[in-house]
């Protein structure tokens, strides 16, 4: 059994992380009724020997996580909240003053100041693993700590653990964002993601808001639903404002890792994700979509989805975690990760059914990677996660580039960045060039797909 370490950076990263741990624990508690430490649990938790008295008293499991924030608020809430027993102080790294929504402060100033401590904490976590397979980095793109220090951490992980896969969940800011410098932060962070991550799962705030609005509308309709108390027991404490949104991201991560944690007839290892879905090293942005779309309470009263409906859902615009329509764009590859009582024949039938409505790049017309995990999410009989390497992601990137250009044209707020040590103007132009060339690469694929596909001339054998 392999292990993965979650590195959560910044306010958003830590809030999402907190939801992830809460839900992960619930999921394992649901499957593992005896409460005995088992292999499945071992992929994200470590067993603590309680015979040796711990200063914090009784604990038996501890997360494989590193929590980093340059403020104290969120991390303090976590370590004082109901999940406090899951973390110990050696996993936490906080400062008091925050990054002031400034990428340069997070990346350069804090990055240099805390470099050794971060590496030390990650290494400590890694020492608890007997086969470390994957890092999950959770952060946001808009702020200062998540985007700046988060991407710095990403670089450090690559330096220190070059063979361990890095999967990044990045939360992109909405267009009407209260952080005025978010376009700068996001574009600067994008370059780091493009160069140092193995896979990036982009999630847009705006998309989560829209999903929740829809879910709330639907959930008013009466219908047979799943038991509410299974999903929303008071384990996580009172619901906080972003909890429903963060739950969606946490569920994305749970579904992504389910096949690595539990049994299934068609297992998917985490290192298979990048192998199958990333045809070119830079094009590693995978658009996630989930069905059913669960948050904590909102959709408990919704009728469970039939398998076929669920397959249609994950390809529809409404279920994407970024605002994009993959059906109208080009697929480079697509993964379908099923959980629960789904069968091989459900997978094959639905792929067959949906295939004609989707366009795939000419050299990968059957670009499907599928997996089945027999353990369903708590409170559901089945669920489905789709990861699409689709050119539709460039819409999000172009919007980001435009907002960046508007700000940069006036050189607004630049001086805040340039006064940080190590920050240079050239980093801005390099970052925007990196983003532009990424968009261009997606464009090229789109354009090539419009010409009619033909087989490459084969090698000729002299007879």
């Amino acid at each position, binding site marked *: *059994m*392999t292990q993965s370490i979650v590195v959560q950076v910044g306010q958003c990263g830590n809030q999402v992380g907190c939801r992830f741990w809460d839900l992960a624990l619930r999921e394992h508690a649901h499957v593992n009724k005896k409460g005995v430490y088992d292999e499945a649990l071992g992929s994200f938790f470590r067993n603590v020997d309680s015979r040796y008295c711990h200063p914090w008293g009784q604990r038996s499991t501890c997360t494989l996580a590193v929590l980093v924030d340059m403020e104290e608020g969120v991390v303090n809430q976590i370590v004082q909240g109901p999940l406090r027993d899951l973390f110990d102080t050696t996993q936490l790294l906080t400062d008091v003053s925050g990054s002031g929504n400034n990428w340069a402060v997070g990346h350069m100033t804090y990055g240099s100041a805390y470099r050794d401590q971060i590496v030390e904490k990650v290494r400590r976590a890694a020492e608890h693993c*007997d*086969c470390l*397979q994957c890092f999950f980095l959770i952060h946001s793109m808009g702020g200062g700590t998540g985007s700046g220090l988060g991407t710095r951490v990403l670089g450090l992980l690559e330096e220190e653990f070059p063979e361990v896969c890095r999967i990044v969940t990045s939360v992109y800011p909405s267009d009407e964002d209260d952080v005025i410098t978010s376009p700068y932060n996001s574009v600067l962070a994008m370059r780091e993601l493009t160069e140092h991550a193995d896979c990036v799962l982009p999630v847009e705030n705006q998309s989560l808001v829209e999903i929740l609005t829809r879910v709330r509308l639907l959930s008013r309709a009466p219908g047979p639903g799943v038991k509410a108390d299974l999903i929303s027991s008071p384990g996580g404490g009172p619901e906080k404002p972003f909890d429903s949104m963060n739950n969606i991201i946490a569920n994305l991560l749970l579904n992504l890792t389910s096949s690595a944690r539990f*049994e299934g*007839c*068609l*297992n998917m*290892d985490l*290192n*298979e994700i*990048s*192998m*199958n*879905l*990333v*045809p*070119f*090293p830079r094009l590693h942005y995978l658009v996630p979509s989930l069905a059913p779309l669960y948050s904590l309470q909102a959709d408990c009263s919704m009728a469970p989805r039939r398998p076929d409906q669920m397959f249609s859902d994950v390809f529809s615009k409404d279920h994407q975690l970024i605002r994009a329509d993959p059906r109208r764009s080009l697929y480079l*590859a697509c993964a379908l990760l099923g959980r629960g009582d789904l*069968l*091989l*024949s459900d997978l*094959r039938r639905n*792929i*067959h059914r949906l*295939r004609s409505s989707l366009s795939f790049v*000419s*050299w*990968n*017309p*059957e*670009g*499907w*990677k*599928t997996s089945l995990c027999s353990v369903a999410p708590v409170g559901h009989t089945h669920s489905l996660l789709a990861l699409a390497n689709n050119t539709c992601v460039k819409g999000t990137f172009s919007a980001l580039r435009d907002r960046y250009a508007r700000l940069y044209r006036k050189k607004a707020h630049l001086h805040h960045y340039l006064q940080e040590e190590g920050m240079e103007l050239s980093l801005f132009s390099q970052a925007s060039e990196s983003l532009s060339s990424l968009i261009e690469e997606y464009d090229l694929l789109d354009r090539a797909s419009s010409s009619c596909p033909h*087989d*490459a001339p*084969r*090698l*000729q*054998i002299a*007879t």
Partner: protein
Amino acid sequence: MSIVTVQLGQCGNQVGQELFDVICKDARDGQKRGYSDASTARFFHETTTGDLTSRAVLIDMEPKVINHSMSKAAKSGRWRYGEKSHFSQKQGSGNNWANGYCVHGPRHREAMEDLVRREVERCDRLAGVVTMMSVAGGTGSGVGTYVTQCLREVYPNSFILNHLTWPYDSGEVIVQNYNSVLTLSHLYGLSDAILVHENDTVHRICAQLLNIKHISFGDVNRVIAHQLASVLQPALTTDSYGDYSRNPLGELVSSLACHPEYKLLSVCGIPQVASSSMAYSVFSWPGLLKHLRQMLISNTKMEEGIDWQVRAPPVHCGGAEWAHSFRTTGFNRSLANLLILRGKDVFSAEADGFQDAALYTSWLPPREAFSMWKSPVSFNQYEKSATLVSNSQTLLKPLDNMVRKAWNMFASRAYIHQYTKFGIAEEDFLDSFTSLEQVISSYTQLC
């Protein structure tokens, strides 16, 4: 004589477990003492307590499937895997052939060779090694190729039969065509014969012949295991004089893989019916063999939708003409065929239809190209059953498809960076493509 089986990767370990299950059931139910003794000696050794332990080595880079197969075997109560005959690691090969072949394989060479050596040393007489793996993933294909290469070095005089499961045409793994091309091209130089099952064909058998509504991997694997067992279980050859314990791998290879350019074997069996319709089915040898022959020449892989229009062409025609007319008439030419008959009245069965020179090439006459094994013990609930192992053009189309798709992907250099990372360069891909194009060309021009 005994066969050592090496199960590799998720697919190999699942199919292998089903295979031993079928064999064990068949050997126990068999009325004839000689048959079941021969089968037991071939695939199992008995521990001091009298338990049957399979002569198998289980290799995977992750423990889940091996644990599952071992506990399933133990639960059967009839047989088990050797306590120590398995090797697993914690982290899989991630669908990457290069990771299996260049990293995992060399790193664990000694441990894996030791396991095989231990099994080999337990055999009084070794017939050879059967490796079971898929070509799509990383461990089965990559580590499997590496292990085959090592076995070839360590046992240069033993027979090595590779049993390969080819993936669904529309994939389970996106890079499956790359992995398949790399596996096949390497194995072609190492193996004595390559026995292929296609998932697509087996899936159709499950759906249309066996009427299974919701087909699982278990169902697919069971069909593969049954077909494979019907080939590997003891049978009487024409010159064995009633003695079962001949060398099955040697006989198989010598009758089917008579030329180094042609090593791809396919299997089809008849009858295959749902157990619910067994009561209403009656089989006769002439009927079964007539169907099986037409399946062979019309390239139909199961007993449904057989094209009865296809005829074997008249003997001794010009070469190039026939390469062309293969496409137009759908005639499937064989290099060699092995017919295995099992069941009641088997010695009265006549297989003249398969001895027709028109079925074969001009350079290998039917008496060389056709062999037949018989066993009076019925197999797998059927009173009479026939299995045909064929070295023919049947696999040409799926192979050509595989190479075409991989080549298209290679033209854009998609996914290549994932392989170069572990030491497989573009030139290695080109070499593999070249050698498979050669195979395709050879089979296309079979005449």
